[in-house]
């Protein structure tokens, strides 16, 4: 009698085993989750340092050179219409662009997302500029008809403001209000010359208005090199790098 029960049990177990074997053998019963902050409390694996050291020495030799001095930290934000870093970046690139082509009306040399790191207060090392602008993007000037400029202004407003120079506007309900270009009200009936990067001009970051330019020419200078030139020129003139919020883009 006892043996029969045991056999039944074995049979049931056997059948269950067959059923289980068709699918997963394991049931997920629990999970614990967390994260580690990788800070100075964490010890260092010296074999890893040994591996990257030769690269570091080579890099530092080139990138540690000081090319200027920042009066204060220049930071960015996705949420603000205007930032210190955005103003510095676009003013610097526009200034360098105008040295090549003085007829440029305004500049949007990058999107907010294209500025990859802040500039610290104090010495500006070449590495800081590479971290701010790591991409190899080149400066281009596009001649746009008024309706395309309007599309670009709409994009800037819709996206909550972008780094610009030579352009002012107020954003209301994600629309541009009273845009001023070079101090003059925007005129839909004329054409404008806009400085940007080849990346943005080619449709990068979904910036509106650049699809159908009347003219396009390359200035033959990388955005990063324009920034480096601007910082070096400012330093040679005995000045610090600085930026202010001047209300070029405000939100209501």
């Amino acid at each position, binding site marked *: 009698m006892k043996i029969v029960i045991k056999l039944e049990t074995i049979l049931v177990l056997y059948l269950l085993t067959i059923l289980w074997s068709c699918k997963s053998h394991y049931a997920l*019963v*629990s999970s614990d989750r967390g994260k580690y902050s990788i800070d100075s409390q964490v010890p260092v694996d010296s074999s*890893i340092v040994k591996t990257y050291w030769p690269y570091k020495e080579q890099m530092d030799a080139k990138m540690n050179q000081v090319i200027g001095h920042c009066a204060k930290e220049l930071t960015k934000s996705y949420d603000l219409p205007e930032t210190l870093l955005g103003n510095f970046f676009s003013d610097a690139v526009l200034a360098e662009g105008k040295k090549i082509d003085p007829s440029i009306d305004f500049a949007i040399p990058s999107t907010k997302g294209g500025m990859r790191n802040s500039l610290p207060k104090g010495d500006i090392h070449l590495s800081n500029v590479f971290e701010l602008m790591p991409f190899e993007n080149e400066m281009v000037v596009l001649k746009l008809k008024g309706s395309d400029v309007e599309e670009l202004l709409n994009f800037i407003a819709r996206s909550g403001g972008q780094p610009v120079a030579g352009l002012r506007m107020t954003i209301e309900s994600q629309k541009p209000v009273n845009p001023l270009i070079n101090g003059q009200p925007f005129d839909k009936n004329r054409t404008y010359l806009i400085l940007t990067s080849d990346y943005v001009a080619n449709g990068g970051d979904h910036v509106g208005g650049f699809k159908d330019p009347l003219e396009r020419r390359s200035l033959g200078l990388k955005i990063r090199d324009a920034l480096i030139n601007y910082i070096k020129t400012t330093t040679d003139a005995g000045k610090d790098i600085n930026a202010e919020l001047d209300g070029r883009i405000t939100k209501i």
Partner: protein
Amino acid sequence: MQNSMEESQKFDRRKFLKAAGVAAASLAFSTQSLEALAKEGDLHKLTILHTNDVHSRIEPFPMDGSRNQGLGGVARRAALIKKIREEQKNVLLLDAGDIFQGTPYFNMFNGELEMRMMTDMGYDAATMGNHDFDNGMEGFYKQLPHAKFPILVSNYDFSNTILKSSTQPYKIFKKDGLKIGVFGLGIELAGLVEKKNYGDTIYLDPIKKGNEMAAILKNDYACDLVICLSHLGYNYKESKVSDQVLAKNTRNIDLIIGGHTHTFLDQPEDVKNLDGHITTINQVGWAGINLGRIDYYFEKGSAKKIKAATQYQINNQLSG
């Protein structure tokens, strides 16, 4: 925005956990006893470690007064991973893409060092982010000899490109009897990466591909856990495919390790998928500032199996 977003996540998650009946009060056993069971062999423990958007951050951020000063660094991450591997039997180390670009290490050495470091740390797999195309497909291809781990991506059709034999859609890892299926999903490249850098790559719908991959891994290969390495981004204001959209519109994905949006989630987010099961989303910021960790406990052939597929105990702390 970041803060209010995180607040609303916390709230949503609490609501969801209630709805799914995973209230903390109903816990059958404490984490400590689970640990003990795992050691006795009744439970199998799997530890997932993950990063995303490391962006060539080999050394910690410099001490220059900026927000992230002193954080990150591969030498520390490597030491931490080594320590965890000494303590845990079953570890998977994964990355959700954007390995390249952000420090002069990339400008000078083109990603060679990033791949070598990840190989030395013992990464098990990574997916591709948009910035991994920054030196074109040739640029990525050139660094693959330094990457002794698979590049998983299922929704880029590379057939007509140099990368045609360089990636694979998924990989199944076997750990202590457990089968873990891992697949990759990449973001739409048009409008984000210059055409010349992605050439003839064909982008395929990540929801469709994700469902297809997860079904293969869960049903055909009977994986115990299905993980998606995603570079789609955590969420967007506009209606664009994201990890949240992916989680809600798929079946069979247990965990999405995300990237692209550099989102620092306070804790992983649990979303109800098409089957009403939990799909967990996690993302740990960027630049190797954090290392994410999720420990999963599995019970062998348990009668709880069917029940456990829809609900399991979740603790937002690590037990060791």
